[in-house]
C-alpha cells in the first residue's frame, strides 16, 4: 500500500477524489447555512455549484498530492532544495513528477496516446451507430455526449502530444541541458491528468450535448456534464499556457553557442510559432467557458438574450482562441515534415528561411481569421468579407511550405523507411485538408458547406496531415533515441499502408456526403438521402484505421521487449541529439555544443552542423 502511494500519479488521483468531496461538502454546508437547497437528485446528489467547486478543489488536491509543488512550497517557507533531483531508475520515474524534460516529454506523449485511444474508441462507437440510418444502439443523448467528448478528448490529446514532442526535442535540438524552468515544466504536465479526469467524468455526470464548441444558450441549459467539460478545458488550458511560456524562454535563452536564429532546426521555429499562439490565445477559450460557467452558477446573463446578453459574443471569444488553436495543432507537425524530409532526401530543406518565416506568418495571420467560423451566425453582415480575405491569406504561407517540400524532394536521393512514409503521408493528407479549406473560407460557398460533413472531412484531413501522421513519423524516428531500440519496420509499414488509404477514403467520403447534404453532429440521418452505403464504407474505414493503430501499439510493445538494439546515429542525421549514443543520457550533452554549419547540408557530407567542445 505504502509502495503504491509513493507513486505520484496514484497519490494525485486519491487526493483528487478526496479534494472533490471536501470541496463539494464545503459548498453544501455553506448552502445549507444560507437556507439554499443543499442536495439535488437531478444533479447526482450534490448541487451544481458544489460539484463545480469540488471539481476545482479536486484539481488543486491532485497537483498537491503528486508533490510536484513541493520545491516551491519549500522555497516559500524559506528552505533550500537541491537544483537537480535524480529520478528513480526504471519505469517508476514516469509515474511521478520528474524534472527531466525527456521524462516529461515521454509522460506527455504516453498520456496523449492514451487519450487518443479513448477519443478514438468514442469515435468508433458512434461511427458504428452511423453505419446505417435509424438509431441502432445509442440513444440520442449518448450519441451527442460521445461525439462531443470525442472532439474535446482528441484536442486535449493533440495538445499533450505536441507538448510531448516539443518537450523532448527542443532542448536536445538547441543543445540545452533541460527546459528553462524544469519545475514549471513538471507542473504544466501534472495539471493535465486531473483535467482529463474531469473531462471524462462528464460522461458519468449527465453528459453534455453541445459539441466541443459549447455554444450557449444550449450549453447554458445542458446537463451537469457540461460544467465538468468547461472546468476540464479550463484546467487543461493552464498546461498549454505555461508549457508555451517555458518553451519560448528556453529557445530564447538556452541555445548552444553559434546557434543563430537561422541556424536553428526548423522544428524549433515551428515550436516557437506554436507556443506564441498557445501563450496568447488560450486564455480566450478558458475565459469564454468560464463566462458560461458563471452564467450557469450565478445567473450572470453574459450570453442570455433575456438578460441583455449576446450569444454571438461567445462565438467571437471562443473562436478567437479556437481558430489559432488549429495552428497550434498543426504547426509542430508541419515543422516535423520540414525536419525529416532533408534526412531522407539527403539534401537541404529548400528555402529554409522562407519556410521558417511561413510558420510565423501562419501564426500571425491565424489571429485575424476567427470569424470564418461564423459566416452564417448572424454576426454583422459586412464583417464576412474582410474575414474571407484574411482567411484566404493563410493559403499563401501554407502554399510556401508545400512548394518547399516538393522542391526539397526534387533531385534528392529519396529513401522510404517508415518515418519517411509517414512524412509523405502527412504531406498528402495535409494537402487534402489545405485544398478543401478555401471553399469554406469563401463566404458564398461556405453558406452551403458550413455545419456539414464536408467540414468534418476537411478538418480531419488537416488534423491527420498536420498532427497524426507527423506525430507517428516522429515516434518512429525518435523512438531509438528515447529507448535505444528501433521500432519494427515491417509492422511500421503495415501500420502506414493500412492507415493511409483508409483515412483517405474516410475523409473523402465525409466530404462527398457533406456536399450532398449530410449535416454534422447528427445521430441519425434520413434514409431518403441515400447516404447509408457511404456511411457503411466510412465505418469500415474507421475500423481499419483503428486496427492500424493497434498494430502500432503492438509494435511498441514488442520492440520494448525484444526490439533491435540501436545506439548510434540510426538515420545518419546531422542534428545534435544523434551525435551522442542512445538512449539519451540524463543531462543530455556532457560537453557543450557549438554550431559550426547549416542544419540541413546533407548534400555536403564534409560540412558538419555541430561540434562538441573539447
Amino acid at each position, binding site marked *: 500500500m505504502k509502495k503504491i502511494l509513493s507513486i505520484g500519479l496514484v497519490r494525485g488521483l486519491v487526493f483528487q477524489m478526496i479534494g472533490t468531496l471536501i470541496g463539494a461538502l464545503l459548498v453544501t454546508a455553506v448552502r445549507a447555512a444560507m437556507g439554499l437547497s443543499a442536495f439535488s437528485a437531478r444533479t447526482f446528489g450534490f448541487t451544481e455549484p458544489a460539484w463545480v467547486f469540488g471539481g476545482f478543489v479536486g484539481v488543486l488536491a491532485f497537483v498537491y498530492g503528486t508533490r510536484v509543488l513541493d520545491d516551491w512550497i519549500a522555497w516559500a517557507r524559506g528552505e533550500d532544495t537541491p537544483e537537480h533531483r535524480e529520478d528513480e531508475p526504471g519505469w517508476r520515474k514516469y509515474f511521478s513528477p520528474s524534472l527531466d524534460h525527456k521524462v516529461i516529454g515521454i509522460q506527455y506523449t504516453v498520456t496523449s496516446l492514451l487519450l487518443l485511444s479513448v477519443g478514438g474508441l468514442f469515435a468508433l462507437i458512434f461511427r458504428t451507430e452511423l453505419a446505417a440510418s435509424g438509431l441502432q444502439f445509442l440513444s440520442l443523448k449518448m450519441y451527442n455526449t460521445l461525439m462531443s467528448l470525442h472532439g474535446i478528448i482528441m484536442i486535449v490529446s493533440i495538445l499533450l502530444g505536441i507538448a510531448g514532442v516539443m518537450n523532448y526535442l527542443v532542448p536536445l535540438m538547441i543543445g540545452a541541458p533541460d527546459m528553462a524552468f524544469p519545475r514549471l515544466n513538471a507542473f504544466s504536465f501534472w495539471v493535465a491528468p486531473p483535467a482529463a479526469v474531469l473531462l471524462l467524468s462528464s460522461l458519468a455526470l449527465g453528459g453534455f450535448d453541445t459539441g466541443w464548441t459549447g455554444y450557449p*444558450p444550449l450549453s447554458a441549459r*445542458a446537463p451537469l456534464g457540461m460544467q465538468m467539460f468547461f472546468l476540464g478545458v479550463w484546467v487543461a488550458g493552464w498546461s498549454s499556457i505555461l508549457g508555451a511560456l517555458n518553451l519560448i524562454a528556453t529557445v530564447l535563452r538556452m541555445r548552444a553557442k553559434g546557434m543563430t536564429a537561422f541556424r536553428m532546426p526548423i522544428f524549433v521555429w515551428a515550436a516557437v510559432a506554436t507556443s506564441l499562439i498557445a501563450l496568447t490565445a488560450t486564455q480566450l477559450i478558458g475565459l469564454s467557458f468560464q463566462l458560461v460557467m458563471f452564467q450557469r452558477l450565478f445567473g450572470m446573463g453574459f450570453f442570455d438574450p433575456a438578460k441583455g446578453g449576446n450569444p454571438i459574443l461567445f462565438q467571437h471569444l471562443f473562436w478567437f482562441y479556437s481558430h489559432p488553436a488549429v495552428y497550434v495543432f498543426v504547426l509542430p507537425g508541419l515543422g516535423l515534415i520540414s525536419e525529416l524530409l532533408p534526412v531522407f532526401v539527403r539534401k537541404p530543406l*529548400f*528555402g529554409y528561411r522562407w519556410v521558417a518565416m511561413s510558420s510565423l506568418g501562419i501564426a500571425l495571420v491565424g489571429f485575424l481569421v476567427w470569424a470564418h467560423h461564423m459566416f452564417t451566425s448572424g454576426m454583422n453582415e459586412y464583417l464576412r*468579407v474582410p474575414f474571407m480575405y484574411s482567411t484566404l491569406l493563410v493559403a499563401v504561407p501554407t502554399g510556401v511550405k508545400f512548394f518547399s517540400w516538393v522542391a526539397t524532394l526534387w533531385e534528392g536521393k529519396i529513401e522510404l523507411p517508415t518515418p519517411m512514409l509517414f512524412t509523405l503521408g502527412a504531406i498528402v493528407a495535409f494537402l487534402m485538408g489545405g485544398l478543401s479549406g478555401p471553399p469554406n473560407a*469563401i463566404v458564398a460557398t461556405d453558406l452551403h458547406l458550413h455545419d456539414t460533413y464536408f467540414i468534418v472531412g476537411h478538418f480531419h484531413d488537416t488534423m491527420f496531415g498536420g498532427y497524426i501522421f507527423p506525430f507517428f513519423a516522429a515516434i518512429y524516428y525518435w523512438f531509438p533515441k528515447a529507448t535505444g531500440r528501433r521500432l519494427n519496420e515491417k509492422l511500421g509499414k503495415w501500420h502506414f499502408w493500412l492507415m493511409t488509404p483508409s483515412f483517405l477514403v474516410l475523409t473523402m467520403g465525409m466530404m*462527398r456526403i457533406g456536399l*450532398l447534404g449530410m449535416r454534422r453532429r447528427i445521430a441519425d440521418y434520413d434514409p431518403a438521402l441515400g447516404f447509408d452505403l457511404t456511411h457503411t464504407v466510412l465505418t469500415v474505414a474507421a475500423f481499419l484505421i483503428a486496427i492500424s493503430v493497434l498494430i502500432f501499439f503492438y509494435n511498441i510493445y514488442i520492440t520494448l521487449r525484444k526490439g533491435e538494439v540501436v545506439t548510434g546515429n540510426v538515420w545518419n542525421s546531422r542534428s545534435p541529439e544523434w551525435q551522442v549514443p542512445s538512449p539519451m543520457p540524463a543531462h543530455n550533452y556532457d560537453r557543450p555544443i557549438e554550431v559550426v554549419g547549416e542544419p540541413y547540408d546533407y548534400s555536403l557530407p564534409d560540412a558538419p552542423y555541430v561540434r562538441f567542445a573539447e
Partner: protein
Amino acid sequence: MRHVVIVALFVLTMTFLVYTGLNALNPLPTQAATQAVVVDRMFHLEFIAIAFLFSLITVPLVYSLIVFRRRPGDTGVGRHIEGNIKLELLWTIIPLITVIAFSYMGAQALGDTLRVDPQALQVKVTGFQWAWRFEYPDYGITSNALYLPVNRQVLLRLESPDVIHSFWVPEFRVKQDVVPGRETQLRITPTTIGEYTVRCAELCGVSHAYMRSPVVVVSQEDFDAWVAEKQEESTEATGPDAGRGQKLYETLGCKACHSVDGSEGVGPTWKGLFGSEVELDDGSVVVADEAFLAESIREPGAAIVAGFAEGTMPSYALEESQIADLIAFIESLK
C-alpha cells in the same frame, strides 16, 4: 529541364482529369434557387483551382519518388540546392494574387445571394427545439410546412425562442443561423417546383437530428389555392379539436418523448394523463386539469413531474388554439 517539362505536361493532364472526375461525380445537390446558381458558379471555379493545385503538388511529388528514389547500392547524396529566391518569391506572389482574386469573386457572389427584391414574400420562421413553424403575416396563416411560390423571392425572417438553430435547404444552398434574442434574415428565390426539406444545421440539443420540416415549392396558382385553404381552415377552427391535436403531436415532435400508449419515454406518457393526479418533484400533488396541462406546455420549467429531469421538455412558442388542440388530444387518450 527535361524533368520539368515532363512534370508540367503531367500536371496539365492531371488537372484536366481531376476536374472532369469531380464533375462526373455530381458533387452537388440539385439546384433549385437563383442563389444556388450563384453559389455553384463559385464552386466550379474552386473545383478548377483545386484540381490544378492538387496536380501541381502530387505530380512532382510522385514523380520525384519514382525518378529520384535511391537505387540499391547508391550511397551518394542529393544535389546541393539551398533555395532559389526567384522561385520563392514567385510562389508567394502568384498565390497572393490568386487568393485576392478569389476573395473578390467570393464577395461578388455573396452580394448576389443577398440581392433584394422589394416585392419579396415575407415569412416569419420560428425554429425551436425541435421543429419549425412558418407564419405568413400577409395572409394571417401559420403552417408547419413552408409553402413557397416558384420564381418569387421570399424573405425569411428567422427567430428562435430557445437556442441557436440554422435554416438550411441543401437545394437552395444558402444557410442562416436562427439566434435567440434577435431576428436574422435569409432571401431565397426558388426556381424549381418540388418538395424539399429544411433541416436544422446547428446542433441544438438532443433531437437536433430530427429537426426538419417540409418545404414545398409550387406554382403561383397552387400557392394561392393553398393560402385560401389555410385561411378557411383557421376560420373554421372554432374550439379545440383532438384530430388537429394529434397532428400537432406528430409534427411538433412531442411524439419523440411522450407516448400515447402508456409505454415509457423521455417524458411521461399521455395515456390516462388528463384528470389524473400528478406528483411533482417538490413532493406536491396536482390534478392534471386543463389549466395545469396548458401551463406545463407553455412553461415546461414551472412544474416538474417527479422522476423526470428539468430542462428536458422544450418550450414551444405555441398559439393558444394549438395548446387547446393538444389538450383536447390528451383528453381523448383515456
